[in-house]
């Protein structure tokens, strides 16, 4: 701590409430994820299985990503399909 701060009349902003808020948000997420650490892997496998029923897929071309934010989390699924799909599938999909 600097000598100047020691004698200044303006108190430093309390950071403890920020710590509490950050922890509460983080732990709410972490507790939700506990017990299902393989969630993303499982999602990827199941998505792969569903799409594979209709199209021959390269397993490497299925990417599942999860972004966690304080209010909203997003699940991003990126499936790369091979060229030359049957028209009927292109219509329904």
């Amino acid at each position, binding site marked *: 701590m600097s000598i100047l701060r*020691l*004698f200044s*009349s303006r*108190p*430093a*902003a*309390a*950071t*403890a*409430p920020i*710590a*509490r808020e*950050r*922890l*509460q948000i*983080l*732990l709410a997420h*972490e*507790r939700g994820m*506990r*017990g299902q650490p393989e969630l993303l892997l499982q999602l990827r496998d199941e998505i792969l299985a569903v799409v594979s029923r209709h199209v021959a897929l390269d397993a490497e071309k299925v990417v599942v990503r999860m972004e966690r934010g304080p209010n909203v989390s997003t699940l991003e699924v990126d499936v790369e399909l091979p060229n030359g799909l049957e028209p009927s599938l292109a219509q329904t999909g």
Partner: protein
Amino acid sequence: MAKVLVVTSGKGGVGKTTTTAAMGAALAQAGQKVVVVDFDVGLRNLDLVMGAERRVVFDLINVVQGIAKLPQALIRDKRLDNLSLLPASQTKDKDALTEEGVGRVIAELRKSFDWVLCDSPAGIERGAMLAMRFADEAIIVTNPEVSSVRDSDRIIGMLDSKTVKAEKGERVNKHVLITRYDPGRAARGEMISIDDILEILATPLIGIIPESQDVLRASNVGAPVTVNNPASAPARAYHDATRRLLGEVIAMMVPNERRGLMNLLRGRRAA
């Protein structure tokens, strides 16, 4: 009936070994028969903090592997008759500890002691898992700091799912012990508050240990702080926590800042 107590935290450097030594000694001073067991294979330190480092002949792994008998490995404390230490091994092979072997040693210790205190290594790997595996009670050592609180939360989750008690549908009796508490920083709002920690962890508090030079002095000379300087603030806080562990109801004292000149100057605006 004997009780197995794990001292754990997830995070390193928060005071697990200090706490194991201090509360082990305090329990012994209260007339209990106590053994403290170091689970930190490869990085043992409980022997050093308790001043028994030159008396280690056999260790926990030797006993688990059947190379030594339990009484050969136990080191009796020089100051307290009813306090013993089972040191960890310095071998790097952490896999030498098996669940079956640890279970056998703990069961044997239960027969001759009132309290078996397991000093957990940091982390959530094998050593930490085995230290908590057979616990009836747990002390989660937490510093008022975000990373420590997060790790404590994780450890609490493990105590509720990965212990023998949890698997039988029972509960490990959990207590939070806050260490390295700095009243000055707390007053200035720089340190996450005790109420916030308890609310987040949803686990009862067993004590608040103030940050103190006395803890370092005690480890320097190889004596639990509760023995080395029983009148010091951390020792008194550890003694209170120990009595609460034994079921006594004692008012929780939040450590106060010492009022030096500088603190008075600072305290004026903190108040």
